C-alpha cells in the first residue's frame, strides 16, 4: 500500500494479510498479518483511506460485519489485533456484503443481508456507525450482493435470485430492475455512465445499458463452469476481467461503443461482435477463482485470489498493445 499496488487477502485461520507489490512489480511482500476473530466472507478496502477496510464474517451460526483499521506497524511483523472502528450490528439475517462508494470520500456505508438494505453513517473519529435508514427488499427476494454506482452516490444495485434491483438511497425505494437470474457479481463501469456488467453462474457475462434494461447490449460466454467474479477496468474502455470456478481468469475486450452505435448502427455492432472478445485466458490456477481486483494506481495490473488461498498478480500490458 505504501509503495506500488497492494491488496488484502483472506487468511486460513481467520487472518487478514496486508500484501504489498514490490516497486518493480515482480514480487509480493507480506507487510502484515492480522488476526480476525471470525471466518471472513467478504472484505472491502476503503477507497479513500487505505488503512480502513470492512469485513463480513460468520460465527458459524450467525453473521456479523465490522469496519476495521490496520494499526501502525512500527516494523514489527507479528501483528497485534486489528483496531475495530465500528460494528455494523443491526443485521439479523445472513449478511452478504458491505459497500463503500468507490468514487471518493463518503462517510456512508451500505450493508446488504438476505432481506434488508442498511445505510450506515460512519464516524471514524467517534468510532461509531449509526443506521441512517433501512429497507426490506421484500419477502420474495433474497438479496445476494450489490454494487454502488460510482457515478451516482445515491444509487446502488443489489442482486437477488431472479433480478438486479436498483435502489435510491435518499428515499430507500426501488427504482427499477433487470430480469436476470442467478447473478453472482455485478460491477459498474467506472468510466462510462449507465453501463453495468453482470456475471451469472451458467449464462456467462452480460453487459447492460441501464437505460434499456430489456436485453443486454452484449453477451460474453464467460467460463466453462460458473462465472463468479467480474471487474471492469477503471481506465480502459471495455476491458473486463472475469474469474470462474473453472480455475481460470479471462480478460475480455468488449467495447460498448457510443450510444449511437448501440441503438442504431446494428451493422457495425454485429461486425464488432464477430471479433472474438476473449483477449486472454489465465489458466495457471489450481482451484476456483473467487476474487479479482484491478490496481487503482496502475490500471493494467490486476490481482486474483483462488480457493487454495493464492494471490496472483498479473499485468495485462502485453495485451493492451494489441488494441
Amino acid at each position, binding site marked *: 500500500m505504501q509503495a506500488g499496488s497492494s491488496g488484502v487477502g483472506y487468511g486460513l485461520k481467520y487472518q487478514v494479510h496486508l500484501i504489498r507489490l514490490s516497486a518493480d512489480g515482480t514480487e509480493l511482500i507480506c507487510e502484515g498479518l492480522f488476526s480476525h476473530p471470525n471466518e471472513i466472507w467478504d472484505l472491502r478496502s476503503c477507497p479513500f483511506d487505505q488503512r480502513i477496510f470492512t469485513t463480513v464474517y*460468520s460465527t458459524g451460526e450467525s453473521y456479523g460485519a465490522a469496519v476495521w483499521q490496520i494499526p501502525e506497524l512500527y516494523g514489527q511483523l507479528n501483528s497485534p489485533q486489528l483496531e475495530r472502528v465500528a460494528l455494523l450490528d443491526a443485521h439479523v439475517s445472513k449478511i452478504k456484503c458491505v459497500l463503500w462508494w468507490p468514487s471518493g470520500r463518503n462517510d456512508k456505508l451500505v450493508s446488504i443481508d438476505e432481506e434488508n438494505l442498511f445505510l450506515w453513517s460512519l464516524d471514524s473519529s467517534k468510532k461509531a456507525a449509526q443506521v441512517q435508514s433501512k429497507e426490506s427488499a421484500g419477502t420474495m427476494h433474497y438479496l445476494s450482493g450489490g454494487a454502488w454506482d460510482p457515478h451516482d452516490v445515491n444509487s446502488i444495485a443489489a442482486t437477488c435470485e431472479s433480478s438486479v434491483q436498483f435502489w435510491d438511497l435518499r428515499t430507500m425505494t426501488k427504482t427499477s430492475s433487470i430480469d*436476470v*437470474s*442467478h447473478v453472482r457479481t455485478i460491477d459498474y463501469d467506472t468510466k462510462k455512465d449507465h453501463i453495468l456488467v453482470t456475471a451469472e453462474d*451458467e449464462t456467462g457475462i452480460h453487459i447492460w445499458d441501464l437505460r434499456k434494461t*430489456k*436485453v443486454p447490449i452484449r453477451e460474453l460466454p464467460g467460463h466453462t*463452469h460458473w462465472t463468479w467474479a467480474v471487474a471492469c477496468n477503471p481506465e480502459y474502455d471495455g476491458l473486463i476481467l472475469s474469474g470462474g470456478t473453472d480455475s481460470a481468469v479471462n480478460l475480455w475486450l468488449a467495447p460498448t461503443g457510443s450510444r449511437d452505435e448501440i441503438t442504431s448502427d446494428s451493422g457495425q455492432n454485429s461486425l464488432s461482435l464477430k471479433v472474438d472478445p476473449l483477449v486472454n485466458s489465465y489458466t495457471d490456477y489450481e482451484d476456483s477463482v473467487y476474487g479479482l481486483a484491478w490496481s487503482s494506481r496502475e490500471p493494467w495490473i490486476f490481482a486474483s485470489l483462488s*480457493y487454495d488461498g493464492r494471490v496472483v498478480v498479473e499485468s495485462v500490458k502485453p495485451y493492451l498493445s494489441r488494441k
Partner: protein
Amino acid sequence: MEMEDPPLDDKARRMRDLLSSFYAPDPSMSAGSQPKGASFDNIDTDSFDADQYMNLLVQKANLEGLLQRHVEMAAEIKNLDTDLQMLVYENYNKFISATDAIKRMKSNIVGMESNMEQLLDKIMSVQSRSDGVNTSLFGKREHIEKLHRTRNLLRKVQVFNAIAHPRVVFYGKEQFIYDLPARLGKCIKTEAYADAVRFYTGAMPIFKAYGESSFQDCKRASEEAVVTITKNLQGKLFSDSESIQTRAEAAVLLKQLDFPVDGLKVRLFEKLEQSMGDLQVKIGDIAGALEESNDEHENNLQLGFSVPHDASVREFVEAVRAYRIIFPDSESQLIKLSEDLITKHFLTTEQYMKERVSTATFLRVLRIIWNDVLVIDEVLPEGLLHDYCFKVSQSAVKQYFSSTFSHLLQDVSDALMNVHVKPKDVSEEHHLQVALESGKNSLLKGSMDLLLGLRQLLEDNLDLLVKLRELMTDWVQAGFQQFFEALDTRFLLLSGRNKLSSQGQSPREGLQSEKVICGLVLVLAQLSVFVEQTAIPRITEARTEMAASFSGSGARGYEHGPFFLPAEICRVFRSASEKFLHHYINMRAYRISVLLRKRFTTPNWVKHKEPREVHMFVDLFLQEESVVTTIIKLGLKSLQEFVRLQTLNRSGFQQIQLDIQFLRTPLKELAEDEAAIDFLLDEVIVGASDRCLDPTPLEPPILDKLIQAKTAETREQNSSAASSTTQQRL
C-alpha cells in the same frame, strides 16, 4: 366669295348682302358671310357701336379728317337710299310675274287626272294576259327538261357500265338501275352477298349523282336492301360457326359498303380476350387434375395435351388465324394478346406454385404452355412468341426452384417443431428420436427429390427447357447454398439461442420454453452433424454425377463459378452442431444447478440433523435423462461450489457424505470417465469436510445400511415403473 369676285365693287357687294340678309331665314347666316375681321368699328356689322365709333374717330382723326369723313358718310348715306329704292321696285316686279304664272298653272292641271287612270287600267290588263300564257306553258316545259336530263344521264351510264361491268351491258341501261332493288333482294335470298355488294357499289355513283332526282325510289329500295345485307354480313362476321373464309369475306364486303369496320374489330377483340379469360382458368384445373390423375390418364397427359385445354387453344389459334385474315392490320394487337396469354399462363403457374408442385406437374404445365406457344407461333410467326416465352419462363422456373427450396425448409422445420407436441404415451427420448429421424428424412429426401426434379427438367427435350438448362443448374446450385444458409438461421431461431436478436422476447419467456427447447437443441445438434456428414456429401455426389451426365450444360455452369460451396456449408454446420451441443449442455447444467441451489440454500446446514436416508435430490439428479459425462461433471462441480458456500455441522457433513456415496455407483454407470467422476465426488466430500465444524464421517456400517435401503427403494420403483409401462403397452 370675296376671293371669287375680287373685281366686285363695294356697292354691288353691299347690295347683295342686303338682299341675302333680307331673304335669309336667320340673321346669323348673313353674319357668317361677313368679313372675319369685323368689329365694333366696322359699320357694316351687327356689333357696330355708334358711340364708340364716334369716340374713336374723334380721338384718332383731326378736324380735316373728320370733315372728310363726314362728307364721305353723307355720300354713302345717299347711295344707300337710292339702292333701297331700287330694290323695292325690283321686288315688286317679281311679285307680279309670279302671280301671273300661278294663275296659268291652275287652269292647265284640271284634265290630266282622268288620262292617268286610263293608262293604269291598260297596263294591268296586259300583265294578266302575260301571266296566263306563262302558266299554261310551264308544265310542259318542265317535263321536257326532265326528259332531256334523263336522256343525258342514261347515255353516260351506258358508257360507264360498258367499261366497269361488261355483263351489265346486256341489260338495258334503264332496266339495270330500275331492276337493282329486285336484284339485291334476290341476292339476299340466295346469300350471294358478294354480287349484291358489287351491284350496289356499281350503282353507287349513279345514286350519288342522281339519287335525289330520277332514281329516288330506286335508291331508297336499294338502300333498304343494303341495310339488310349489312346486318346479315355482321351476323356472319360475328358468328363462330361460319367459316373463316366467309367471315373474312363478310368483313371485306362490309368494308366495301363503307361500314365502320373498326368498331366491329374492337368488339371482336374484346370477345377474343374474353375467351382468353376462359382459357386461363383452365390451367389451374388441368394442373389440379394432373395431381389426381391416374396412370392411364397420365399417359394421355404425358403428351402435353389435355383435351379441354387443347380445344380452347385451338379455338384461340383459329381465331387468331381468322382475325389476321379478316383484319390484316391487326398483327401487333394479336401479338400483344398472345403475349398476354403467355404471361397470364406463367402468372397462373406461379400462383399455383405457392402450393406444392411435383416436378412432373410442373413439367407438364410447362409443356402445355410451350405447346400453346408453338401453336400460336405458327399463325403469328412475326410475334417471336417463343422468344418471349423463353424470357417469361425464366422467372417461373426460377420461382419453381425457390418455392421447392422454401417448402423443403418448411418441411424440415415442421418435422422439428413436432417436438413441441409430444404425445403422452411416448417417452421423450423416443419422441426426440422420431423428430430427428423425420427431420433427417425430410431433409435428405427433399434434397434428393429436388435434384431428381432438376434432372428431370434437364433431361427433358422440350426446347424451352433445353435453352434453360445452364441457368437451371446455376439456380439449383445457388438455391442449395441459400437453402443451407437459411436452414442454419432457422436452426438458430428454433434453438432460441438468439435471444439477443429477438428483442420482443423477454428472458422469462425464454426460461419457460426452455424445457421444450432443451430436447430440440439436442436434435438440432444431431441434425447439424447429419447435414455436415451425410446430407452435404450425398448432395454433392448426386450433383457431380448429374454434372457428368450433362457435361454439355453442367460443366459450363461451373465455369461461371460454383455457387454452391459444400465445404463452407459443412464448416458452418460443424460449428453449428458444436454450438448446439454446448448450448444443450449449458441448459442441462443450468437445470441441475437450479436443483442443487434449492437443495443447498434451503436447510440450515449448521443445525443439520443426523442423516437417516439418502436425500431425495439424488433421485432428481439421476432423473436428468441423457446425463452425459460432461453434464455430470458440470453438475458435480456445481455441487462442490455449493458445498463451499455453506458451513456444516457434523450431521450436515455426514448427510453429504451419504448422498455422494450413494451417487457413486449409478453415476459411474452413466458416465464414461469413471476416474474423473470419482475425483469430482471426492472433491465434494473434501469441500464438505473443509466447510465442516466437526468433520467426523459416518460409520461405514451405517453408511452401507442407508445406501442399501435407498438402492432397494430405487430398484422397487424402477420395476414398478417398468411394469406400469408394460401394462400400458398391453
